[in-house]
């Protein structure tokens, strides 16, 4: 750390520490502490909580990274997993000189105060790289966990899928229920090389007073494919993120799938930005959201058609269960080339009464019928996810169903 080459980023970051983000509420980061109140410990309770975000710390056949506050408690790859390496980012930067060519290259350190603070207050993060022409059978797991009250966690992750490789990663981010008032700024840089495929699934499960500002940049080279699956089911105080993919190589593809259940007074401002830079590139963002309580959801989307034969599509499907919640879809299509094809589709509405009555006519109670419809609407069916994880997400959605059976007609 602290090498000469990093100084320029520190300086740039210092210039940007007060720069407001383009979207979302401004968070005063000085309200948070950077030193954890206690020593991180891998307890049964913690392991149970990580399972909720799809990460099995006991899994033996894959690779697992586990960071509690600022401590990396687990970073290991099973011996049978060939061609994948994983370690804390700091360690990787020390080990590989070439890695500086990937540091802050997929997004800018001075993008806003959050990227700036992430550089100045960086706390580990993971580095995962798949060797050329290798393929993982099971997703590599990573979990970023906040256990201390008032903590600011700012990991910097770098993932590289080398040429022709297929890498699948499941990341869970969560906070201890006793860790009140926490902030998470996760910087993630993804590099998908020629002909490689990276499937990245992120499951968020925060506490009701967590402030979350992930910052993500993706670079996809020729013939590469980047697939992002994002799942947020539990309430959060305030999350804002706008992952951006740059499709720089011919025929590169990016697809973002998001499944959101917005509840209580969560403020959720999420979007995807895709630059179709090279010929024949294509990108798609599919955002499905159910809003309840007094939650406010914004789904932004931008796709830039910048070359011939490019194709982009933005899709937002929203269901408003409670009249006190709002969903705003803001799709933007920017054609900068005459041979680009861009489209968007947004449909937001209340639960369809016809469907509700139809289910009830089979003897299903209104509460259960709402649960079934919500589950069906959000049904993951996410590409590249093992059935175990799909079921995990479905069972989370089932809990919503059970909760509604418990009493309140609608969780408003």
């Amino acid at each position, binding site marked *: 750390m602290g090498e000469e080459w990093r100084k320029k980023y520190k300086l740039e970051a210092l210039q940007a520490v007060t720069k407001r983000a383009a979207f979302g509420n401004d968070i005063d980061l000085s309200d948070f502490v950077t030193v954890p109140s206690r020593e991180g410990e891998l307890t049964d309770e913690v392991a149970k909580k990580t399972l909720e975000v799809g990460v099995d710390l006991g899994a033996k056949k894959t690779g697992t990274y586990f960071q509690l506050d600022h401590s990396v408690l687990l970073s290991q790859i099973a011996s049978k997993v060939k061609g994948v390496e994983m370690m804390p980012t700091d360690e990787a930067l020390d080990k590989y000189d070439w890695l500086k060519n990937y540091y802050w290259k997929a997004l800018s350190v001075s993008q806003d105060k959050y990227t700036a603070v992430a550089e100045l207050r960086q706390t580990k993060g993971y580095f995962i790289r798949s060797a050329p022409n290798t393929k993982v059978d099971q997703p590599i797991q990573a979990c970023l966990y906040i256990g201390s009250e008032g903590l600011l966690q700012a990991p910097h992750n770098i993932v590289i899928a080398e040429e022709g490789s297929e890498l699948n990663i499941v990341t869970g981010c969560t906070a201890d229920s006793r860790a009140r008032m926490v902030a998470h700024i996760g910087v993630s840089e993804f590099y998908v090389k020629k002909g490689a495929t990276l499937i990245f699934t992120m499951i968020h499960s925060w506490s009701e007073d967590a402030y979350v500002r992930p910052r993500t940049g993706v670079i996809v080279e020729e013939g590469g494919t980047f697939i992002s699956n994002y799942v947020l089911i539990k309430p959060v105080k305030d999350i804002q993120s706008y992952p951006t993919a740059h499709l720089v190589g011919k025929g590169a593809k990016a697809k973002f799938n998001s499944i959101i259940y917005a509840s209580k007074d969560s403020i959720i401002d999420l979007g995807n930005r895709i630059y179709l830079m090279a010929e024949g590139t294509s990108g798609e963002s599919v955002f499905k959201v159910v809003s309840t309580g007094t939650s406010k959801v914004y789904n932004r989307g931008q796709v830039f058609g910048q070359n011939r034969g490019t194709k982009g599509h933005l899709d937002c499907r929203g269901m408003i269960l409670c009249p006190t919640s709002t969903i705003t879809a803001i799709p933007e299509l920017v054609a900068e080339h005459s041979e680009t094809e861009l489209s968007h589709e947004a449909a937001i509405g209340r639960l369809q009464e016809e*469907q509700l009555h139809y*289910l*009830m006519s089979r003897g299903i109670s209104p509460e259960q019928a709402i649960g079934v*419809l919500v589950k069906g609407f*959000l049904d993951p069916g996410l590409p590249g996810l093992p059935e175990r994880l799909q079921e995990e997400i479905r*069972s989370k959605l089932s809990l919503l169903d059970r909760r509604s059976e418990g009493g309140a007609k609608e969780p408003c």
Partner: protein
Amino acid sequence: MLLRVEDLHVVVEGKELLKGISLSLDYGEIVAIMGHNASGKTTLALTLAGFPQYVVSKGRILFEGQEISSKGIDERAKLGLALAFQSPPAIRGIKLGHMIALSAGINPWQPKPGDDLELPKKILSKVNLDPERYTERELNVGFSGGERKRSELAQIFAMKPKLMILDEPDSGVDIDSLKILGSALLEYFNSIRCGIMIITHHRHILQYLKPTKVHILSGGKVAITGSYEELMPKIEEKGYERLIKEEGVNG
């Protein structure tokens, strides 16, 4: 008596659509409801099923002797009244197999010990929908007319109802599907001897089911009641309008 409808008046959005219908249907009985478009057939079906837009302004609906007019859709279904829809909605994200399980009172995501999770497949076979192909299909999404009708039957068979109300199970169905529907219905009927109220425009399906009684509706009332053997040839010969003019109680 399984179902007794007495002087039923129904109002939808301020307009009276049923104007005093009385009829009854017993266990093991098949009753056909016929009549031209907008005569009140579907209104009757949806009112019996408890759809809240269909407000009973006068009269009674007795199901096994119990007045059910104020009961909700799901409560009536639980009592044993099942409706096969004329145009069921297509719902993305819900699998037909799950829907059949739910109709049978099984929660496919959290089954209880003893729940028969193979039930959806068994029932799909009964209605001649290949279980391997249809269990995982999204509910009615991209289904043909015939597939939708069979999906409806599969769901209501799973409910093991005492009374099946079939709203035009034969509309938009080709002759091959009609045979499948007719024989599946008959087999089911013979196995549990429930009551069936079938709304239809055509005699084809009635050839399988051989109703004991036919009611012809007109203007929200029962205009003619008779046996299938007596009325069907007349309907074919004269059409509803002329027949009602000549023989209807309002004619």
